[in-house]
């Protein structure tokens, strides 16, 4: 189950964060998202250590913690997407598919002429679209 998604800007400024749990763990989720930014920076600056495909937007599993798995994605415009889940066995294809849809939603949101670059995404259409993507996560693997 996806419990949190986040969009983080160039200066590591939060652009969007939405959690999907009933619990009161906002602080913890913010902390997890924050920690994952360092992992992303590390990975992007030292790509050879990891051996993943160079400069691919999808960064894969950033780190597993006790209860969560955190995945990352970095766009060409240096915007980071973070996905926090509680699932144990995720198919890589599902995560990739999630990020692809999420990226498309993000691109449309920042195409709104009234969106201010670098500012938080306040679009209701974006929030709804994200919720839909999150709900359908893992149900249909399309490659």
């Amino acid at each position: 189950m996806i419990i949190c998604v986040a969009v983080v800007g160039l200066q590591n400024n939060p652009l969007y964060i939405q959690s999907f749990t009933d619990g009161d763990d906002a602080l913890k989720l913010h902390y997890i998202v924050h920690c994952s930014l360092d992992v992303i920076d590390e990975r992007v600056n030292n790509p050879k250590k990891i051996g993943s495909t160079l400069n691919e937007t999808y960064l894969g599993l950033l780190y597993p913690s006790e209860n969560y798995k955190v995945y990352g994605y970095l766009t060409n415009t240096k915007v980071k997407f973070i996905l926090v889940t509680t699932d144990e066995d995720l198919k890589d294809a599902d995560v990739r598919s999630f990020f692809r849809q999420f990226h498309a939603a993000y691109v449309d949101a920042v195409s709104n002429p009234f969106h201010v670059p670098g500012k938080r995404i306040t679009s209701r259409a974006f929030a709804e679209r994200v919720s839909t993507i999150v709900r359908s996560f893992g149900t249909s693997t399309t490659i």
Partner: protein
Amino acid sequence: MAPLAPRSGDAVFANVERVNAELVTLTYGAIVRQLLTDFEEVEEVNKQLDQMGYNIGIRLIDEFLAKSNITRCVDFKETAEVIAKVGFKMFLGVTASVGNWDADGTECSLILEDNPLVDFVELPETCQGLYYCNVLCGVIRGALEMVSMKTEVRWVRDMLCGDDAYELKLKLLEQVPEEYPYKDDE
């Protein structure tokens, strides 16, 4: 030589040079945002968008007539249909429907379900009263003026403001009779 038959909106659109809609969508959006910054007043921005549309309309009419093979519309009713089915299609790739005619046939509605100008657009609260697509009113007014019809065009419904469709009111104010500069009386 017999005049060429008028073309359908689909046929005309298929034959014009087409480009990705997002360029015009984003450009128009950036213009509206810049106008809001420059003029501050929403009313003034509506006026400028209408004016820009008017200037576009008076230029586009020639291309429209040439590519659609339309020579003359019988009356205002036919004119409205042509705008909705051929005009919108030829330039924006969408068609409108015509309805709500008044009794004397001088006022009607053009109803659009969507159009490429509004893709991705969400109006902020500070933009209340803005007719985002007001350029279209001006285009129609300008184009019709070049074929001797003085009209008034305004928005009555706007999905960006929560309405269920985009609706333009098109009112014929005056049909100027064609004037020929040189009369061949005898």
